[in-house]
């Protein structure tokens, strides 16, 4: 049984049909890379999974349960799904450590000591164990994004969503974030990554999908996707980006 399923998902922003009849599924432990031009709906697709956006038609099913109906407990759903944003969105008034421990303490109700231990371990894992007591502004962009990843992982999510996690970074900082993501993928995390990093897609994606104008035009393994795309639009996109 797939971990995440999209069934005939449609979404509109006003008159703008942003997701058109999306059918897709992601298995546990799978890494799915979503690419496409800006405005193609790829970020929206990912943000529907933790209900940062609501869909108007169809269903999204996680672990066999429909999560897009009205009575879904949003906070319970979201505590199972980590998300990393393009702009990091760390809390500027809190130290790195407190950024990470806030949700585990308030949502999962674990003790401060336990949350801090987990946070320090996660910071070590993303390579910035010595920055725990600094404020976000004192860190580089790449370090901030790694804190954001640690913050999401602190909730012990089943699924990690990445919404263009390296697009706001200086080129020399992109790799430090991608390396963390690669490690995460190797450890078996289920990941959906909206990204333009085709090297990353080649190396760690199990599957790649290409979206344009709210539709999934192309899907396949990285090998298939990069060497023999079927759709003209995909070919054009790849020519641009590679």
């Amino acid at each position: 049984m797939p971990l995440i399923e999209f069934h005939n998902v449609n979404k509109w922003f006003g008159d703008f049909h942003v997701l058109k009849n999306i059918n897709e599924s992601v298995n546990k432990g799978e890494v799915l890379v979503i690419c496409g031009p800006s405005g193609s709906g790829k970020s929206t697709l990912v943000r529907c999974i933790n209900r940062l956006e609501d869909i108007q038609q169809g269903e999204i099913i996680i672990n066999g349960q429909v999560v897009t109906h009205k009575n879904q407990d949003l906070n319970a759903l979201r505590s199972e799904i980590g998300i990393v944003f393009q702009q990091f969105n760390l809390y500027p008034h809190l130290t790195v450590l407190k950024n990470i421990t806030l949700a585990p303490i308030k949502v999962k109700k674990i003790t401060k000591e336990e949350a801090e231990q987990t946070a320090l371990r996660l910071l070590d894992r993303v390579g910035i164990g010595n920055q725990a007591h600094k404020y976000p502004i004192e860190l580089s962009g790449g370090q901030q994004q790694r804190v954001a990843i640690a913050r999401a992982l602190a909730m012990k999510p089943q699924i990690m969503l990445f919404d263009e996690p390296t697009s706001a970074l200086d080129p020399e900082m992109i790799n430090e974030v991608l390396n963390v993501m690669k490690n995460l993928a190797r450890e078996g995390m289920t990941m959906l990554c909206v990204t333009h990093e085709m090297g990353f897609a080649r190396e760690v994606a199990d599957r790649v999908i290409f979206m344009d104008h709210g539709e999934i035009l192309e899907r396949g393994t990285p090998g298939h996707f990069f060497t023999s795309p079927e759709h003209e639009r995909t070919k054009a996109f790849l020519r641009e980006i590679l």
Partner: protein
Amino acid sequence: MHYTFNWSLIFSGNYGQWFLDGLVITLQLSGLSIFFALLLGTLLTIMRLSDFKPLVWFSVGYIEFFRNTPLVVQIFFWYFGSDPILPDFFKQWLYQQNIEFATGVIALSTYTAAFIAEELRSGILSIPKTQLEASRATGLTFLQAMSYVILPQAFRIVIPPLISQFLNLIKNSSLAMTIGVMELTYMARQVEAHTFHGFEAFTVATLMYLSLSLLVSLGITQYNKKCLRVGYQ
């Protein structure tokens, strides 16, 4: 002009003590009112920004009503006019208190809360929406996200206008003399009535208000600089 200044007179006898007694009441009145105004103002802001329409309407109605009527009228309303609409248990509790003082606190805090709510709302609106999004995405409820992420940031931003509101409240507390609260202005008036030296009496009161306001302003500004702005450029 045959006015002879007599500064020693107004500090003679019990007059000096009167000023101090008045100052203490002003401090208590202002301190309590600031506390309740902040509490109520924050609550009004959260209601205003919630998704639940009746709360939004209540908050908007409250703010417009209290901002747009004179404070003295509100004080008189609470003191002379509110009797028929207050619940019995509250009235009984109120009559056991110093009723003038309690009325002063109610009037000043309900009035100032409306202004604080508006300042705070503009502070919250200046926080990027992505902060709320990021905190909600980790499973925090709306109220938790407000309490731990949004409001702490908003308060840091609105501290300068909040100081003005606090200073206004301290100065407005002098209006409580109209219902007989024996605060600083009331006591200055007493001294004047006994000594016929109004210039000296109100000069002393003026200087006391001035130093109090400057102290509050300086204290909060320093606290903000030293403790709250860490992590900001």
